[in-house]
């Protein structure tokens, strides 16, 4: 079999793993409801009383929902499978470890994208206009992939208890939200604040969303897309390498 056919075959099997993840871990009422409500209420707790316009709030809310949903379940899949001893079964199937990681990323990606459509549709229904829908759609897809890959980095810790991983991921996720220009636009941040914001991948998606919804992003769209793409590749490769290293300690 040629290398190209092997890659294609492994991508197909990654999709099967993603389908399995969605059916087992994502298609649960509480997971879907929590995916919307948690970031919504977190956002409202900071936005209410600050006299912010709906146009300003929408990109931030969209960014938060996408970020939290795409990193909500993926960190816990590997510990759950370790606990249930289904990981050994997967490892003995004709799939590589990167295929398993990619499958988990794709499930998280699909969940993130699907949930993000809900606030977007609600926003459009109450009068928010999307001036650059293609850029927004492209940014949303890229960011969902990027954040899902980040989630898989958290799950590389060889723990079999999901709570350990969730605690670890929360320690990273919450600070990221506060440094990403969601509550304060990048242009209003002091220079040191902007320097910190540029470390967060969420900053670039929020900026893309501001371009598409408010037409006033801080960075050029091409820069946002290029950096998000760079983060996505970096997170995915790092997640695969870390899982390669820690997997023997899970089994």
């Amino acid at each position, binding site marked *: 079999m040629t290398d190209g056919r092997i890659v294609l075959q492994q991508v197909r099997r990654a999709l099967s793993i993603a*389908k399995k993840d969605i059916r087992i871990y994502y298609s649960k009422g509480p997971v879907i409801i929590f995916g919307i409500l948690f970031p919504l209420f977190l956002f409202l707790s900071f936005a209410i009383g600050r006299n912010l316009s709906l146009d300003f709030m929408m990109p931030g809310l969209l960014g938060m929902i996408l970020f939290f949903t795409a990193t909500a379940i993926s960190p816990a899949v590997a510990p759950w499978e370790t606990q249930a001893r289904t990981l050994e079964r997967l490892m*003995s*199937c004709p799939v590589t470890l990167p295929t398993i990681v990619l499958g988990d990323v794709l499930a998280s990606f699909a969940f993130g994208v699907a949930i993000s459509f809900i606030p977007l549709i609600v926003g459009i229904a109450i009068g928010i206009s999307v001036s650059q829908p293609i850029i927004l759609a492209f940014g949303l897809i890229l960011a969902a992939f990027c954040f899902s890959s980040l989630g898989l980095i958290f799950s590389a810790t060889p723990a079999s208890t999901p709570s350990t991983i969730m605690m670890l991921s929360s320690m990273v996720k919450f600070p990221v939200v506060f440094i990403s220009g969601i509550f304060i636009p990048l242009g209003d941040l002091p220079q040191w604040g902007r320097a910190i914001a540029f470390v967060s991948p969420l900053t670039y998606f929020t900026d893309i969303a501001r371009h598409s919804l408010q037409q006033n992003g801080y960075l050029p769209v091409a820069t946002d897309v290029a950096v998000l793409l760079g983060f996505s590749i970096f997170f995915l490769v790092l997640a695969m390498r870390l899982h390669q290293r820690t997997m*023997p300690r899970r*089994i």
Partner: protein
Amino acid sequence: MPVGSTVIEVRNLTKRYDGLLAVDGISFEVREGEFFGFLGPNGAGKTTTVRILTGVIKADGGTALIMGSRAGSLKAKQVAGVVPEMSNAYNDLSGWGNLMLMADLYGIASSEAKKRSESLLRALGLLERKDSLVKTYSKGMKQRLILGMALISDPQILFLDEPTSGLDVQSARLIKELLRSLTESGKTIFLTTHDMDEANQLCDRVAIINQGRLAAIDAPEKLRTATSSLHSVEVSFGSAVPLETLEKLSGVSSVKKLGDKYRLYTASPGDLVTSLVNYCCSCGLKIVSLSTLTPSLEDAFVALTEKEAKND
């Protein structure tokens, strides 16, 4: 009996865990169509060996080839079906869903997968419960499903790690019957177990592993008979006989008192029976019962693993 070409080839396989040698340079071959048993006490290195052969973990040294491909490679995994040690079907999927997932992961076309799943579920007595979530299955049903998941790809080699451990009699029997029929159809089976009866009933050859090293490898019957010092004669007399007197009889290596019976260990039970009869005639002692015992595979296993431990 093994007649085919080599399908599993292991040379100097080594695996360490935190400095502890779990598998210590073992070498063996399994031939096509063979039912090969891999026996050993808990912690002997059985599961580690199977995990290396099935590509779940990597060896630290040596080579393991599955049908000529490196163990753990996609080619090697594609030709093997695996029943791992612990029950591990997806509880939140139905039996059917688990089989379809496995079929997808082995690249089996949907129509073929459906046909095979139905036939496997029927053979495993699970067809009526195919749409129930696995979390509602009993342990025996889960284990039968896991065997089905291993067979969905119609593998040439089947690895089973303690497949009947802790199962009810019916499930264990059904699995054993299915395994027998699989070897009859030419599949190669690699079974790890510490159930001597199971190994004795099913296997063409067994390897005994202890403390990471192979203690013996042969047909069960040959291993039993080769342990000649474990042949014995069990006898009970009309009145008590001092142990020292029996120990002095020709050919007796040791004597054990078991209730009102004596078990005399010897390399030649026929000669011992003659000596016993002569002894009883000479002193007017009545023999109430007498039987010769050949060692069981369990006796051979204990003797071989104890011998290994003493050699250390």
